[in-house]
């Protein structure tokens, strides 16, 4: 007996500008949003995706080799992340979950900063204000509220920057994600809810979380939504640009469901063979985001040997730098655990730090150990 109503994910009604075979799809109504995307820009998006995939694979390898404690691969989600990430302005602010390393790349996050937390060296990687992106959020759904509050404050300031929240299909079940829509709608906050529906929340298929398309939920809260082909980088760029434009113009929030697929495991600790049909993966490989743009470039003569080589070299370089940044990262100090718990002095914690310092020193005093 199946307790819940499940079915396949319908692929109709997706906003698509680029078909899996690399041809341009007509009639989406979104062409105007990418009018400026010329050949060089297309090559740039291609390079971004190739580099990001390569970084992701290198990080996965680093985890297998014991250099990282964990890694959450984005394999398959490059178009959703690059398309949306490249639409943003520097002064927009991103609140993501843990899987958005492609977005982090677009924001200019350095490699060491990208890995710090996964190596276990620091509570998080980068300075959010240096790149206008919060560090990864692990508590599912929590960041949707942060983005909404940030957007409310942006409006208080009279600024026209936009907050963008990234989250997964599973996150839509959390109360927080729904409350975020309530607040965003009520305060007409300039926020974008960017849901990467990669079909899975660890072992749970999206049909356990949502009986209707995820994009169908937002309108009931008073938030316009679009359902976009998440493996189509042009469509992701276009819908995000439209949503940003609406938000900047005072039109309030937009919900974007990017329909994509997590081609790898949930994290390097996961074994998807326990719960999913390998045919599904094969099926989605036919819709690979990088191949797709590659076919367009080829058809338009934009992916000659020289370009290919340049892209490959960039990816190699990035991977090399990532690896180097990883293995050369300095180890944290013994007393770093006590840093930054508070912004202002805290007597009780200072006492604990002092005692622990004396404890560590006691080993030096008596080499035989404390006892």
């Amino acid at each position, binding site marked *: 007996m199946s307790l819940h109503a499940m079915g396949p994910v319908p692929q109709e009604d997706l906003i698509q500008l680029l078909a899996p075979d690399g041809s341009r799809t007509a009639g989406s109504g979104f062409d105007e949003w990418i009018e400026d995307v010329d050949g060089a820009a297309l090559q740039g998006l291609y390079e971004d995706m190739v580099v990001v995939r390569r970084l992701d694979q290198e990080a996965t390898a680093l985890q297998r080799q014991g250099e990282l404690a964990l890694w959450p691969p984005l394999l398959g989600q490059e178009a959703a992340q690059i398309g949306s990430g490249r639409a943003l302005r520097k002064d927009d*602010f991103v*609140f993501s979950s843990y899987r958005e390393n492609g977005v982090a790349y677009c924001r200019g996050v350095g490699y060491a900063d990208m890995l710090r937390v996964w190596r276990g060296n*620091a*509570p*998080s990687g980068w*300075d*959010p*204000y240096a790149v206008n992106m*919060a*560090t990864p959020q692990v*508590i599912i759904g*929590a960041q*949707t*509220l*942060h*983005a*909404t*509050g*940030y*957007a*409310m*404050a*942006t*409006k*208080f*300031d009279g600024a026209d920057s936009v*907050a963008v929240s990234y989250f997964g299909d599973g996150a839509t079940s959390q*109360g*927080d994600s729904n*409350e*975020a829509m*309530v*607040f965003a709608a*009520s305060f007409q906050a300039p926020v974008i809810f960017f849901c990467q529906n990669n079909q899975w929340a660890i072992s749970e298929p999206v049909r356990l979380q949502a009986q209707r398309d995820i994009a169908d939920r937002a309108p009931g809260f008073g938030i316009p939504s679009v359902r976009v082909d998440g493996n189509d980088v042009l469509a992701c760029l276009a819908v995000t640009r439209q949503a940003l434009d609406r938000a900047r113009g005072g039109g309030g929030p937009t919900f974007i469901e990017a329909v994509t697929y997590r081609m790898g495991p949930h994290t390097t600790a996961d074994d998807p063979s326990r719960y999913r049909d390998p045919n599904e993966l094969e099926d989605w490989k036919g819709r690979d985001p990088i191949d797709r743009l590659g076919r367009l470039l080829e058809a338009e003569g934009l992916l000659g040997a020289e370009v290919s080589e340049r892209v490959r070299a960039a990816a190699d370089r990035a991977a090399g730098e990532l690896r180097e940044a990883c293995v050369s990262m300095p180890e944290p100090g013994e007393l770093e655990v006590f*840093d*930054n*718990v*508070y*912004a*202002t002095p*805290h*007597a*009780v*914690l200072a006492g604990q730090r002092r005692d622990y310092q004396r404890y560590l020193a006691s080993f030096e005093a008596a080499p035989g150990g404390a006892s």
Partner: protein
Amino acid sequence: MSTMTFGRAINSGLRRAMERDSKVVLIGEDIGMLGGVFRITDELQKDFGAHRVIDAPLAESAILGTAVGMAYRGYRPVCEIQFDGFIYPAFNQIVSQVAKLHYRTRGRVKMPLTIRVPFGGGIGAAEHHSESPEAYFLHTPGLRVVSVSNPQDAFLMIQQAIACDDPVLFFEPKRRYHTKGEVDEEAGLDGYPMEQARVEVSGDDATLVTYGPLVQVAREAAEAARGDGISLEVIDLRSLSPIDFGTVEASVRKTGRLVVAHEAARTGGLGAELAASITERCFYHLEHAPERITGFDIPYPPAKMEQHHLPNLDRILDGVDRVLDRRNSLGGGEGY
């Protein structure tokens, strides 16, 4: 100096903080036009506008979560939780976000939130309206917790909490909202730091420590004990995290006896921490094990039963008798 109620003192403190810093915004349920169910934010929306005093939709997790987002953008949100028992929907945002973001971002992002919580019982209210959840928060690293016991402190400490770069849980003893007191509205914020406990009554025989609503009861207990020839030292903790152990320790070194009182449940309450820490710090000065006079380990009871749950004058004095080995409900009577 002016005479005002406790509630009015907080209102006045909020107004000062908002005047001083345009990044101070208030958010909560019914705090705008209504001025909050206790009228603590009375008139503030009218005077500062709807973007400074924000009536939030009915969702506490979102109130805290959006406040976090505002703090990311440099704001200093003051969140009102309507009653103690309604803070739990926001617990996840408080414990995993508010408390941890400064640590998580290695000091890059400050979380100068103030979370105002009318707390405690004694008002004959319905379920979830009389709780004392402070222990959950003082066990949570990254948070600061204070509780106020008189209008002057209320006026100043709400401003100190808002000015503090760390998140502060600000517990307001709701049954004292209508209590009047003298308030010096010209007093500066630097005068008496909110981390510091205060000796309310000096005494030599035993130390009685409490905070928030029970400070007044403790003063009355000291008064009553004096009639009995017992000299109690009463300490208002004011800060529950960090606790100012130094002030309590100094007192217990003098008196050798400690009684701690709170309305919250006994097991795992602040009293346990205080008793354990003071025992560690002055074991050889203690003449008797510290006594805890607290709410029982029960859900907050219905209005007509709360008198059998709340620590009151007699129960506190009974505890004093115990640490003094005087006759008490559980025996004693040899010593002293």
